[in-house]
């Protein structure tokens, strides 16, 4: 009796782990991400937004007398704890729940990327493009350093990113957030279709 229960729980556990280590479908992930909005509001009337953390880090580390960084960032430290948590979550998922198989992406995307010499589909990020050795190439520099700069500059200029505008702003029916979200997408389409083919050929 006790043994069969043990076997049953171990089978259940194995199936559960199998399910956990597989990539999760959008209809599981999307609602979970959406729930962050009410959870943060309920915890302490906080509005969901991640790119602000970059501003708080600047204000904390290098305010340099710039008025934009003169405020009491410590009062916003919940945001830094939140992104610290995101880092730990990435660590947990990457270490204990990681998917051993190759990433499954649309065949058309895979073909198009292979034609541009992106052939390593082992991880979440193409090792051909994003690695310490690639950083010193023109292509890697544009993808990582220029790209990162645009993310930081653009989100602050727009007053938010995918979380602050697309998820929080749209959830609260804010039309400026819709404008921002549409522009995020237009920028992404332009870069993917016009810029990347050239950058990947470098």
């Amino acid at each position, binding site marked *: 009796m006790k043994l069969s229960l043990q076997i049953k729980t171990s089978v259940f556990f194995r199936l559960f782990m199998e399910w956990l280590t597989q990539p999760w479908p*959008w*209809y*599981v*992930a*999307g609602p*979970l991400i*959406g729930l962050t909005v009410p959870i943060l*509001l*309920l915890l302490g009337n906080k*509005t969901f937004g*991640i*790119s602000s953390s970059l*501003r708080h880090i600047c204000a904390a580390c*290098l305010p340099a007398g*710039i008025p*934009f960084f003169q*405020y009491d960032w410590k009062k916003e*430290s*919940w945001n830094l*704890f939140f*992104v610290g*948590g995101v*880092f730990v*979550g*990435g*660590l*947990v*998922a*990457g270490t204990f*729940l*990681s998917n051993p198989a190759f*990433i499954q*992406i*649309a065949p058309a995307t895979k073909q198009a990327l292979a034609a541009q010499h992106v052939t390593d589909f082992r*991880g979440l990020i193409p090792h051909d493009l994003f690695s310490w050795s690639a950083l010193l190439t023109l292509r890697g520099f544009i993808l990582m350093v*220029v*790209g*990162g*700069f*645009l*993310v*930081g*500059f*653009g989100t602050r200029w727009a*007053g*938010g990113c995918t*979380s602050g505008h697309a*998820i*929080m702003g749209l959830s609260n029916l804010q*039309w*400026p957030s819709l*404008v*921002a979200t549409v522009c*995020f997408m*237009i*920028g*992404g*389409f332009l*870069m993917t279709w016009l*810029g990347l083919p050239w950058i990947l050929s470098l």
Partner: protein
Amino acid sequence: MKTESEEFIPAVSNDPKARLSLGSLVPYAIVGMFFGIVFVKAEIVSWFRIQEMFRLESFHMYGVIGSAVLTGMVSVFLLKRLKVKALTGESIRISDKVFQPGQIYGGLLFGFGWALTGACPGPLFAQIGAGYSVVLITLVAALAGTWTYGALRRFLP
């Protein structure tokens, strides 16, 4: 030309209940952790998935963002309708977003960066956690971008 700076200053609560303590901050880290796990497990932090999305070759990311927005919308509607209070006792208030030209220009620039790096600010933190150490450089570049914006913003529309 002087732009309104007040709305960019984060609203600071003077409510004594909202005072800082480690205990009050840890729940945010826990929520962030679950968020980070979902990010990695649904491959939202994957450069490949972002490519798929912008190449219109998969529904995955659209499904994630769409269902997240829908869930958020219903929750915000309910919280407002039922006049729910936060656990700190504060009443829940979400300030309106004010339109600025930056939402267009900055939005486009962020879009470029999103397609290049395959990451928005959240996934950057999750990618570093998941072991892609080189993304630290992307994060530092993003911080430099934010800092440069702060330094230049009085010259920008």
